[in-house]
C-alpha cells in the first residue's frame, strides 16, 4: 500500500496583501534553512519549499492530511508575526490576506507563478529564477521529495515553454528599458557607443545605467558641474563640460536629456550645426525632460532620431498591452500543462492496481499450467514452454482492455472509482489514494480573500 501526498500552498502575494504585511512574513536568506526544517517537522507535512520574494511569501508542501497541514502551516506563520504583532493579533493580521491552494489549484498556481503570469509586472523574467532558488533551497535543506520534485520540474518546463511559444517576455515595460530598446533600432549594440547624459535626473540616470550595462561609455554634462561629478563618481561615468555641449554632442551616439530648463537647450539650429560637423551620422536623442529640452522640429534633421517622454510612455503602454495579450495565450498553455501533468500523475496512481491485477492473473496462469502439466504427465520441456506461452498470451489479451480503461479513466479524473472497482472485483490489495485529489471544494473562500484585497 502506498500513501500518496497532496500538494498544498499557503501564502500571500501582492494581489492579496499590502507591503507592510508581506514584509513581516518575508524570510531572510540566512533564516531559510532553519525555517524549512521547522516547516518539514510540522504535523502532516512530508515535503516543503518556501518562496519569499518582495511580492510574495508562499509555502509549498506535499502533505498527507490537508486539514492538519493547513492548520499547522498557518500556526507557523502566526508565530513569525507574533513577536511584532502579539500572539492574539497575529492571526487577525495575516489571515485575511492568506490564500490556500491544494491539488489541481495548487499545481495551477505554481505553474502561473513560475511562468510570471502572477507577477506584478506580468512577464518579468526574475520570478523563474526565484522559484528555482526556492526549490534548490528546499533540496539543499533536504525538505523536498519526489512529489514536489516532479511538480517543480514540470513548472520550470512550463515556464520555459511559455517563454518560447508566446511573446510574453519579449517586450520591455519600463521607460528606461524602452529607451534602450529604441536605441537598438538604430544602432546594432552599445559596445563602443558614447552616451551623453545632459542633466542629472533620476530617470536619465536609470537609462544611462542600463546602457552602461550593455557596454556603452557614459558621459554626464550638467549646468552645476559638482552634481554631474557626484553622479559620475557614484557610477563610474565620465564628465563633460556643459558650456561646451556642442563638442560633447559631436562625439556622442546617444543623448539623454533631463534638465530642469524652461527653454529647449538643444534647438533645431544648434543640432543642424552639430549634425553638419558629424557628417549627418545617426544620433539618437531621448528627451525625458518636462518641459522638453529639445526642440521637436530637430527631428526633421537628417540623422537625428528624437523621442520624448510621451513617445517612451506610449511605447511602454503598448508593450504592456502586448504582454497582456500574450498572457491570455499563456493561460491556455498552463491549463493544458496542468491537465497533462495530472494525467501523468494519475496514470502513475493506477499503476499499482494494474500491476497487482497482472500479478494475480500471472499467478493463476502459472498454477493452472502447472496443474495441467502434472495431470497430463507432460515431461517434454518444449510442450511446457508452449503451455506457458499460451497462458501468457491469454492473460495479455484478457487484461488489455481493463488496462486501457484504467489508464483512460485516470486521465479524466475517474481513475479512483474504477481502480477501486477492479480491486474489489478481483480481490486485490488496496493501492492507496491518488497523488492529486479533487480540489474545488473550498477554493471559493480563497478567491474571496483575493477579490477583497486585489487592488
Amino acid at each position, binding site marked *: 500500500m502506498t500513501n500518496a501526498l497532496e500538494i498544498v500552498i499557503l501564502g500571500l502575494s501582492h494581489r492579496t496583501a499590502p507591503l507592510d504585511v508581506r514584509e513581516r512574513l518575508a524570510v531572510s536568506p540566512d533564516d531559510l534553512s532553519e525555517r524549512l526544517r521547522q516547516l518539514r517537522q510540522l504535523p502532516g507535512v512530508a515535503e516543503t519549499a518556501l518562496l519569499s520574494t518582495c511580492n510574495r511569501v508562499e509555502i509549498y508542501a506535499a502533505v498527507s492530511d490537508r486539514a492538519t497541514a493547513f492548520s499547522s502551516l498557518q500556526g507557523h506563520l502566526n508565530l513569525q508575526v507574533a513577536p511584532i504583532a502579539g500572539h492574539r493579533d497575529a492571526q487577525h493580521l495575516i489571515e485575511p490576506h492568506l490564500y490556500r491552494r491544494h491539488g489541481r489549484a495548487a499545481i495551477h498556481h505554481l505553474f502561473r507563478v513560475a511562468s510570471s503570469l502572477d507577477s506584478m509586472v506580468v512577464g518579468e523574467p526574475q520570478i523563474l529564477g526565484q522559484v528555482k532558488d526556492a526549490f534548490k533551497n528546499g533540496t539543499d535543506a533536504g525538505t523536498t521529495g519526489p512529489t514536489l520534485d516532479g511538480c517543480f520540474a514540470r513548472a520550470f518546463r512550463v515556464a520555459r515553454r511559455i517563454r518560447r511559444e508566446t511573446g510574453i517576455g519579449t517586450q520591455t515595460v519600463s521607460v528606461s528599458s524602452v529607451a534602450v530598446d*529604441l536605441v537598438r533600432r538604430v544602432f546594432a549594440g552599445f559596445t563602443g557607443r558614447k552616451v551623453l547624459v545632459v542633466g542629472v535626473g533620476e530617470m536619465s540616470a536609470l537609462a544611462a545605467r542600463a546602457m552602461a550595462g550593455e557596454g556603452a561609455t557614459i558621459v554626464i554634462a550638467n549646468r552645476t558641474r559638482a552634481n554631474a561629478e557626484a553622479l559620475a563618481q557614484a557610477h563610474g561615468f565620465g564628465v563633460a563640460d556643459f558650456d561646451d555641449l556642442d563638442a560633447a554632442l559631436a562625439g556622442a551616439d546617444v543623448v539623454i536629456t533631463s534638465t530642469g530648463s524652461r527653454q529647449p537647450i538643444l534647438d533645431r539650429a544648434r543640432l543642424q550645426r552639430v549634425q553638419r560637423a558629424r557628417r549627418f551620422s545617426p544620433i539618437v536623442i531621448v528627451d525625458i525632460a518636462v518641459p522638453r529640452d529639445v526642440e521637436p522640429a530637430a527631428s526633421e534633421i537628417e540623422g537625428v532620431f528624437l523621442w520624448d517622454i510621451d513617445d517612451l510612455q506610449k*511605447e511602454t503602454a503598448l508593450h504592456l498591452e502586448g504582454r497582456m495579450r500574450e498572457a491570455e495565450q499563456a493561460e491556455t498553455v498552463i491549463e493544458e500543462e496542468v491537465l497533462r501533468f495530472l494525467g501523468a500523475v494519475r496514470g502513475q496512481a493506477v499503476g499499482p492496481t494494474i500491476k497487482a491485477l497482472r500479478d494475480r492473473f500471472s499467478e493463476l496462469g502459472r498454477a493452472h499450467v502447472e496443474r495441467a502439466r502434472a495431470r497430463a504427465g507432460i515431461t517434454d520441456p518444449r510442450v511446457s514452454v508452449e503451455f506457458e506461452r499460451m497462458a501468457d498470451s491469454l492473460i495479455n489479451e484478457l487484461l488489455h482492455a481493463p488496462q486501457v480503461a484504467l489508464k483512460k479513466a485516470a486521465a479524466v479524473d475517474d481513475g479512483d472509482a474504477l481502480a477501486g472497482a477492479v480491486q474489489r472485483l478481483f480481490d486485490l490489495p488496496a493501492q492507496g489514494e491518488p497523488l492529486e485529489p479533487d480540489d474545488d471544494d473550498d477554493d471559493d473562500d480563497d478567491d474571496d480573500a483575493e477579490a477583497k484585497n486585489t487592488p
Partner: protein
Amino acid sequence: MNPAALALAQIGAYGLASGLYLGLFLGGGPRLAVWGRYIFLLGFAAHLADIGIGCFDARHPLSSTSEVLSFVGWLLASGFLLASVRNRLATTGAFAAPTVLVFVLLARVLPDAGVRVGGGGLATLHILLSATGEALFALAAVLSLLYIVQERRLKRKDFTGLRDGPASLETLDRLSRQCVLIGFPIFTLAITTGAVLVASLGLLRTGSDIRAEYLFAVVSWFSYGTLIIARRTAGWQGRRAAWLTVSGFAAALLVLVGYFLRHLS
C-alpha cells in the same frame, strides 16, 4: 522529380513566404517570421533541387534566359539566407522574398531563349559574373529599401513592425555596404569581359541595343563606384547611401532588362 512540380513548389513557397514576411512587416506577430523562414527555406530547397536536376538535364543555370533569371533569384535567396544567419533580417524578407519570387516567375512566364552569343568560355564567364553581381546589388537594394522605410518609421515614431527586434539601421547599412563592396569588383569584371566580348564579336558596330545595355551598365557601375568613394571619403551612410544603392540597382536592372529584350527579340 518533375520540374513542373518543383517550379510550382518554388512559386508557392516563395509566394507564401512573401505574404508572411509582409504580414510581419505590417506589424504581425513574431510567429510570422518563424513560419516565413521555414517556408522560404522550403522554396529555396525546391529551387536548388530544380537547378541541380536541370544541370543533369542540359539546363545549366547559364544555358538560357529563363535559367539565368532563375539563377539570379536563387543567388539573391542564398545571400538573404546567409545574411540572416547572424542578423535578425526577418523584416527584410518582406522585400527579399517578393524579389526572388519575381525572378522565379519571370523565368517561368517569359518566353525562353537560348543564350546565343558566341565567345564560348568568355561569354559564360561574363554571364556568370553579371548574374552574381546583379544578385548582390539586388540584395543591397533590398536592404537599402528596408533601411529607408525603417528610418522613416522611426523618425515618425511609428514603431509598427519594429517591436520584435528587427535588424538595426546600422546593421542594414553595414550589410548593404558589404554587398556593394563584394558585388562591385564582380560587376567590374562582368563589364570588362562584356566589353571584350562585344569588341571581339564586332557587336558595337551592328547592334544599337547593346550600346544602350552597355550604357546602363556603365551608369550602374559609376553609381556604385561613387557610393563606395563617398562612403570612404565623405563619410556617407544611412539614407543617402541607401538611395544611391537603390538608384544603382535600378540602372543594373535596366542592363538585365536590355539583355533579355535582346535575347528574346
